[in-house]
């Protein structure tokens, strides 16, 4: 595999930046500046838990287009127990990485 050329990488960087900025701006530019009807507000209230749950599920249990349970799944689960108990995020993150690293050291995927 040859490394991508600097030009390819600059195009990728600028293209990704432009797309990300446009996506972030879209909602506020198109929908902003006016009062939304109550039904729309009821939908908006539900967006955070749904989007975050989908992000957690896909980042912990999938790799690209395949569902996959590996050492990191156990690490994330251990961190989840700590977070539910109200422990600090940094502690949870360190435990997640440590559990994952130890399981891999033992030869698990």
């Amino acid at each position, binding site marked *: 595999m040859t490394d991508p050329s600097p030009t390819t990488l600059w195009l990728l960087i600028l293209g990704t930046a432009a797309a990300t900025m446009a996506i972030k701006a879209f909602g506020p530019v198109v929908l*902003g500046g006016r009062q939304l009807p109550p039904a729309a507000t009821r939908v908006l209230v539900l967006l955070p838990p749904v989007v975050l749950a989908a992000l957690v599920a896909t980042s912990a*249990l999938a790799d690209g287009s395949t569902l996959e349970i590996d050492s990191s799944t156990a690490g994330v689960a251990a961190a989840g127990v700590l977070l539910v108990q109200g422990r600090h*995020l940094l502690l949870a*993150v360190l435990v997640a990485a440590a559990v994952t690293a130890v399981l891999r050291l033992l030869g698990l995927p």
Partner: protein
Amino acid sequence: MVHADHRASFRRGVRLGVPFAAVGLLLSSSFGVLAVQAGFSPVQALVMSALVHAGAAQFAATSIVVTGGGVVAGVVAASLMNARFLAMGAALAPSLPGGPALRAVQAQTVVDPSWAVANNGDGTFDRWLLFGATAPQYVGWISGTLLGAFGGDLIGDIERLGLDAIYPTFFLALLIAELRRPGSRGIALTGALLALGLVPFVPAGIPILVAAAVALVGLAR
């Protein structure tokens, strides 16, 4: 003029953003290491983090180009990972004042943790809290990329160190805070299961966007 309550919100945002900034620093160090291994110069890795500031998009775009997928495929993959910002931006829109250009600029400060902590839970957002929470995270994101891009040899293998478990843990912390609000658990579970069910069949990033549509049950409440 910035009002005193705006300043208080901003400061509270900064305090809430600092732990996420520390986690973001670990994540962006991983990005710096991987980007340089993929053929990026350290400056390129740094510019990408400074302009994009969205981990999933940066990892996705980089991995596509490294596997020979080309620039267009890389940008599309990044955009799919970012599709959630369409839903987040729609939720945030009524809380941002000013003309379209000013709203577009303010919307650039949206990153997942800031958006979540700025959520008042009643369909409105505290925008100064959003700005405050993003400020330390931006600094952390750039610093981590610097560390990873220039010090990758010291960090070594990211998976061996279990650093790939950090990204889902980060989102899990945000989710658990959301689940303390009434009426959110059933719908969160539905969204998660729907997203997982779609994973084998659609490109990465799309399952999250489709799952967001579950929030439409709010119309019937």
